């Protein structure tokens, strides 16, 4: 076999690179070689090192060496999770193609592509198509679509780590098996950042036993510098809070020391507030500052992204909306406000600065309350160890299965047995039984299993002539195409100026609380509502000085288990910080207070604090397991205590711990705490302590939308499908009453256990606690650890009472009607 370096294709690419003064990185060369040897695989490299070229050029080399194997139409499919990535990639690829002197055409196709361009593509597909998982499935829903994919030689899934643990990942898996069934010689490659389970990530993307696979990892490591911004004295930082405004001046200084700074916040609400904060601090920033988040209009966001690249902006306040995406050359500094909640996310954000390969990524951390400084210290340790979270792939997502089957039926129609075999190849559905599949078939052809209850249901029908399952109704096809995808958003309204110009999106829930003329903030502007029509809020500029900032739901991520592990370790030696632990040294006075009034838990201890206060008796627990798990633990512990004696609790939690509050004394001792924190009968008690059906009903929302049971009205759409409107909770109830065997219901409960309750993590936490010494401390007043939970922990009440009991209690209480 000839060595790759001796081939014509390599020579052409090598010369082209040399002309530009580049030489390939080791991992690129390795990827090219593996590709030439017919491997499938995963390329892992930090951003800025030319991951794109590792795969794109591999295909070009192969083409130059074997032009006879390439036929007309799409040769390379490039699937990425973000639309915004595609545009720049396409330009880079087309430029390379033109310079090399090839007659290929690279083109983008996604939700932003105009109908005219799409029609043109359908007549004559480009050689390289850059697209998204959703658009792939939309293509599958077109008539005679398989002809477009017969000659695809390679499919690349970009940013695979972002898709992996989502239902969009399952859409991608399904696309892979269908592509391979249409083009058996296709090579599948993924491009990923470092995650904890690369081997699994590879096997999920390429689940085939009969192919050679590999992981190509770059040796190049990105250098990362983490600096926390500290006030002059520890007292200046609040014990609780989430804005961090005391440090706005320091942030401003950082902004002026650097060329372009990205200020990352965790929520859109925080972003809007920081935008105002920085402008208030320095009016000269006007014109050089921008705000970027998921609810801001796409056009506006594109403009901001271009402005960053053209070096027109000094600072951009943003959320995870800029986590991924195009590389911004001018950005040389990143500021993170508040905890990033996870190691991978933090590294990714840091990587947005200092983009060229050997530059250092600089990231400043702004603590919003004192204890967050321990988190920075934990983050530093984790980054040093390069210990990054794993991303768990989703399995048995019946909603996506149902959607995919209908997609195929809308497209070319499908054969029952063949399709079962193809779908079962995916990792997501490898454990799907024949019965499960038959249920899905029944669901899309008959509606359900209750006889005669679905007489008007003819969604997918068997076509005797074609011997395929097809969708015949044009209206159903249309509704289905509108619904393809796995991104479910809350009901959003589009916001635009009366005179024209879109600003962004806002939740219906928030708008419903506003009256005409009331000022609110969006995209850094103070606006007032003029009127609402066709899912659009018409606004004008408001002269008001103060306005409400919307809080979008979601976005409040819990601490990952990896980070919480490092957090407990850091707390362990918090009292004796080494000289290089700047954050811990700074925190020393506070930690000494904690130790004096209570205790600092070592990594093999579990601390419980009991504090008698005016409002009642508090009990605080510190599992450091992230908000969601802490919440579940809280209701579980509350349930177990309430078995000792009748008692009602109010529950509060944050990422570090949770608190129980009661108006009577809570009867705990170190002895019975052992029992209360026992890992025995964990799942039984947990199920008894939460209202599982209520939580599942909330989870069911996404499932109902993906499976096509709820028709989403598109923001800004003129025509809403009003006669088909119903809420997912209503459908959940109907199905629970009349179709209890519906697999979509079972999926809702499974998702509750896996994601909401994080069953595995909960189990692990209790395992750890059972091995720890339980320490009960009675404190006179709030301690540095308990104060943030008391002040701004999210509140809840432990209740497993029946509705009628709750009503009875309600009648004795003070209540408030909300309109």
């Amino acid at each position, binding site marked *: 076999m000839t060595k790759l370096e001796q081939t014509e294709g390599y020579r052409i690419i090598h010369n082209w690179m040399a002309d530009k003064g580049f030489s390939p990185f080791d991992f690129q060369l390795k990827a090219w070689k593996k590709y030439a040897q017919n491997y499938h695989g995963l390329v892992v490299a930090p951003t800025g090192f030319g991951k794109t070229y590792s795969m794109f050029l591999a295909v070009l080399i192969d083409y130059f060496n074997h032009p006879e194997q390439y036929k007309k139409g799409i040769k390379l499919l490039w699937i990425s999770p973000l639309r915004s990535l595609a545009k720049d990639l396409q330009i880079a690829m087309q430029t390379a193609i033109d310079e090399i002197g090839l007659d290929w055409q690279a083109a983008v196709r996604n939700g932003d592509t105009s109908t005219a361009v799409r029609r043109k593509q359908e007549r004559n597909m480009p050689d390289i198509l850059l697209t998204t998982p959703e658009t792939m499935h939309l293509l599958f829903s077109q008539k005679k679509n398989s002809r477009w994919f017969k000659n695809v030689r390679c499919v690349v899934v970009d940013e695979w780590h972002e898709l992996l643990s989502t239902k969009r990942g399952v859409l991608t898996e399904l696309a892979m098996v269908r592509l391979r069934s249409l083009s058996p010689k296709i090579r599948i490659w993924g491009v990923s950042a470092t995650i904890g389970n690369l081997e699994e990530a590879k096997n999920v993307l390429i689940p085939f036993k009969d192919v050679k696979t590999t992981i190509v990892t770059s040796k190049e490591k990105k250098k990362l510098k983490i600096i926390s911004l500290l006030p002059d004295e520890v007292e200046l930082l609040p014990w609780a809070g989430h804005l961090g405004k005391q440090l706005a001046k320091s942030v401003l200084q950082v902004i002026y020391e650097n060329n372009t700074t990205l200020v990352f916040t965790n929520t859109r609400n925080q972003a809007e507030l920081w935008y105002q904060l920085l402008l208030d601090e320095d009016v000269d920033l006007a014109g050089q500052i921008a705000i970027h988040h998921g609810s801001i209009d796409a056009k506006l966001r594109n403009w901001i992204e271009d402005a960053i690249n053209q070096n027109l902006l000094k600072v951009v306040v943003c959320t995870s909306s800029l986590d991924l995406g195009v590389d911004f050359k001018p950005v040389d500094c990143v500021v993170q406000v508040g905890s990033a909640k996870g190691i991978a996310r933090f590294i990714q954000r840091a990587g947005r600065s200092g983009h060229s390969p050997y530059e250092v990524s600089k990231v400043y951390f702004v603590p919003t309350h004192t204890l967050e400084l321990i988190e920075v210290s934990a983050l530093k340790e984790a980054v040093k160890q390069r210990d990054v979270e794993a991303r768990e792939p989703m399995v048995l997502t019946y909603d996506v299965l149902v959607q995919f089957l*209908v997609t195929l039926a809308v497209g070319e129609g499908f054969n029952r047995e063949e399709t079962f075999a193809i779908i079962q190849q995916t990792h997501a559905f490898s454990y799907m039984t024949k019965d499960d599949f038959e249920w899905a078939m029944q*669901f899309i052809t008959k*509606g*359900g299993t*209750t006889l*005669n*209850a*679905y*007489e*008007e*249901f*003819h*969604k997918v029908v068997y076509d005797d002539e074609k011997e395929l399952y097809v*969708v015949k*109704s044009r*209206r*159903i096809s249309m*509704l*289905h195409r509108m619904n393809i995808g796995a991104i479910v958003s809350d009901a959003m309204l589009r916001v635009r100026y009366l005179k024209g110009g879109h600003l962004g999106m806002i939740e219906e829930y928030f708008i*419903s609380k506003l009256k005409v003329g009331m000022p609110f903030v969006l995209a850094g502007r103070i606006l007032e509502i003029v009127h609402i029509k066709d899912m659009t809020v018409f606004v004008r500029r408001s002269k008001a000085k103060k306005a409400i900032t919307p809080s979008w739901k979601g976005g409040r991520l819990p601490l990952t288990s990896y980070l919480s592990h490092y957090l407990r370790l850091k707390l362990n030696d918090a009292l004796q910080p080494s000289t290089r632990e700047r954050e811990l040294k700074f925190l020393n006075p506070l930690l000494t207070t904690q130790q004096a009034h209570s205790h600092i838990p070592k990594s093999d201890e579990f601390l419980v604090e009991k504090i008698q206060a005016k409002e009642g008796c508090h009990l605080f627990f510190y599992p450091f397991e992230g908000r969601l798990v802490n919440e579940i633990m809280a209701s579980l512990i509350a349930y177990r205590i309430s078995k000792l004696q009748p008692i009602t609790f*109010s529950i509060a939690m944050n990422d570090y711990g949770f608190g129980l509050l009661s108006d009577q004394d809570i009867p705990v001792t170190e002895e019975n705490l052992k029992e209360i924190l026992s890992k025995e009968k964990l799942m039984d008690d947990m199920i008894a302590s939460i209202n599982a059906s209520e939580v599942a009903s909330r989870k069911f929302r996404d499932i109902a939308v993906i499976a*096509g*049971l709820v*028709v989403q009205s598109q923001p800004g759409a003129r025509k809403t499908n009003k*006669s*088909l*409107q*119903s*809420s997912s909770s*209503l*459908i959940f109830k*109907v199905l629970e*009453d*009349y*179709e209890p065997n519906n697999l979509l219901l079972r999926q809702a409960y499974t998702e509750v256990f896996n994601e909401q309750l994080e069953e595995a993590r909960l189990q692990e936490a209790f395992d750890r606690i059972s091995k720890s010494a339980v320490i009960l401390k009675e404190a006179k007043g709030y301690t540095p650890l308990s104060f943030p939970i008391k002040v701004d922990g999210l*509140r*809840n*009440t432990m*209740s497993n009472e029946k*509705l*009628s009991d*709750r*009503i009875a*209690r*309600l*009648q004795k*209480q*003070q*209540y*408030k*009607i*909300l*309109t």
Partner: protein
Amino acid sequence: MNIVTKDIRFGDEVLTLTNQRVLFWKKQEALVLSDIHIGKTAHFQQHGIAIPDTVLLKDLERLQVLIQYFSPKKLIVVGDLFHADYNQNFDVFVQWLQQFDGLEKILIRGNHDRFSTAFYESLGFHTQKQQQYNTLMFVHDAVQTQEDTFYISGHIHPGVRIQMKGRQYLKLPCFQVNSQQLILPAFSLFTGLNTRSELENVRNYAFTDDAILEF
């Protein structure tokens, strides 16, 4: 089925509210309800959304029990008897309706009721845009009120969101009543709730399977 009732004074009349989404006007022996949306499940099915007809059968069964319980002379539906175009659900309803041949049936046309008068007549329903008995005016959607007239309507599917201690919420269907207007809850169980109230000085009579509560 547990029927709980509560008498209220509305204008010059005494009306009986129930926890089963209907109102009984004893003086006229009239059973009043709104928004039953016959045909909704089949309409969803026709559009590829699998909602079982059992939902409809349950609604009809509930109505049957209520008619037997109150044995009214009149049945007044203040709108949205049907959900959309003609479908198989209609046949089920027509068949079911035969047992109440002797009942006087009045339909106040709602936004969903788009069929010809002749069609409703063939089912035994007299249709009206609005209908007045004494001082009570039956309409589908709330209208501009006139002095000394009291309006009974439906259309909005009223519900109430109640905040309890500790950030807990409850959402319940209700009758919304003020001095001149009374809005009925939707009769069909396959309907959502609208918790935004347009009425001023409103009292909400919310209900559960075994109680009526006043907020």
